[in-house]
């Protein structure tokens, strides 16, 4: 498996996979890490620069207390794919307000900005079907100061 740098200032990079597509993403904190994972996922589908930030959605994800951060990441990405598919929207701005761990579970709150899909304007590159658990990662990097993660998508 080889990493492909697509010059996105290392917020995320695409990861080559023999039949599907993956991303590796980075963040100074968990919130930023999750934002960059979302940007990476939508960058597989469309050039983010072409997606105007005109329509807002608020997202709340609740997970059980026994799930890992990688599971929370899957819930987050799946929720974004759900909104994309049901509302027919693409998103390019992700503001994760907080990721908290409480005794009764994990919670993620975010607002996302984008617009309705317009095929005249948005050239779709590869539609993402779902994030997979295959080679899934969310961890601190070697320096211990930054977060990094990886997801392989079914496309």
């Amino acid at each position, binding site marked *: 498996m080889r990493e492909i740098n697509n010059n996105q200032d290392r917020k995320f990079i695409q990861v*080559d996979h023999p*039949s599907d597509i993956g991303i590796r993403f980075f963040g100074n904190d968990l919130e930023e890490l999750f934002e960059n994972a979302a940007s990476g996922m939508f960058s597989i*589908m469309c050039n983010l620069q072409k997606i105007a930030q005109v329509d807002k959605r608020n997202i709340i994800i609740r997970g059980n207390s026994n799930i890992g951060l990688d599971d929370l990441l899957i819930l987050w990405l*799946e929720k974004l794919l*759900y909104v994309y598919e049901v509302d027919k929207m693409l998103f390019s701005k992700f503001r994760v307000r907080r990721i908290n761990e409480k005794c009764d579970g994990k919670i993620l709150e975010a607002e996302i900005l984008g617009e309705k899909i317009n095929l005249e304007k948005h050239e779709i590159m590869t539609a993402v079907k779902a994030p997979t658990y295959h080679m899934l990662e969310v961890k601190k990097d070697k320096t211990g100061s930054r977060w990094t993660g990886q997801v392989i998508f079914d496309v």
Partner: protein
Amino acid sequence: MNGYNIKKISDCKWEIEKNESRGMRVPGIIFADKKLLEHAEEEKTIEQVINVASLPGILKASYAMPDIHYGYGFPIGGVAAIDIDDGVISPGGVGFDISCGVRVLRTNLISSDIKKNLSSIMYGISVSIPRGVGSRGKILVRGSQMRELLTKGVSWAIKQGYGWEEDKYFMEESGCMEGADPDFVSKQAKDRGSDQVGTLGSGNHFLEIQKVSEIYDSKAASILGLEKEQVTIMIHSGSRGLGHQICGDYLKLMQQVSSKYKIELPDRQLACAPVLSPEGKRYYGAMACAANYAMVNRHCLAHWARLSLESILKKSARSLDLGLIYDVSHNIAKFEMYNIDGKDRKVLVHRKGATRAFGPGHRDIPKIYRGVGQPVIVPGDMGSCSYIMLGTEKAAHESFSSTCHGAGRLMSRTKARKRIRGEQLKEELFTKKGIVVVASSMSGLAEEAPQAYKDINNVVNIAHNAGISKKVAKLEPLGVIKG
């Protein structure tokens, strides 16, 4: 050494010896020639075959078909038959696009009949079929209608006036998989599926107008209603967002219960639960709903294609003889009967990118095909060809009645996008081969370029020579619609 030993059984069959230290409960069997095997080793796909061999209850072997390539969890082209009493059901062994599959319709046209107006036919069909990202189907299905669709499958669509009554007899399970329970399908899955009935989707999904370019078995071809130069229509699509959501929902559930059932796996994407556990039964009920949705989806796509051809050719679909030859699912788990060690046993066969291939005489294939075997549809890439094959008796012993489902990827999508330009590919297919391509996305088209796939002829010949299915006809594309 790579931590495994490969033993040659024949020129097209290899065994990965069982290695208990790697958790293997059974050996691996790969149907491939030396070159394809080497490619699978380079991609590390063998590791995925070994991982599947560790599933509780797996019987005889972890199989890989000749179009094997690296997937996530299961390899694409992977087959695992599981003991119902002691074994597991795995959503990853079915995949996100539950019951993704292919169908072929015949016509009474020959290729020269449509040569002049091929472009108008392709564009005409392309506007009648919702496709690509963000497309909405022509019908909205909610509430009790959705429940009925998920439970009854193609009979629901026929009742609504889509397709022909006899179509269902040329589908696996007559267009309705038993055991479907919409209560096990989440609201999110139903939401995603509500406006996607009769939509092609994107990626490797397509509608092709083809011609029969070669016949290998004239008796069988005649029973299937195929002859040289005849025009056929092939449709490849699946269960769309509804299936993707069901797979995701149940992967999560099965991760949560794995410790309860003391299941340890080498890849989280293989998450599973005992077949007879409450979680296993719920997944099966939801998966069967997705299978019914997928069959309805392909059925409605064929319906719009028939209407479109009627309007372009000014003849009725009946007078054009646009009957369904067969419809197969290549991402599915099914209960089937096999004779194992002298005993008839019901087992659960997972096929992740593999096609069921029942031989002659099997009661679950349409009566008119029972003398020759179940039609197997193997789509190739858009620049070469596809095949119609038939299931064999031998496949029951060799591969739990399974065979290949396509060519299999050779080049990654990112590599294909870098090396190939969609516009140029479209032009070349037209100028060099006369193939008319209509595509929603040019980079999506580049990912599906012929050079990104293995040689379908080689893949099909291996399946044929291994005896797990046999060639009947080759179909060459005349026009291609991509999502």
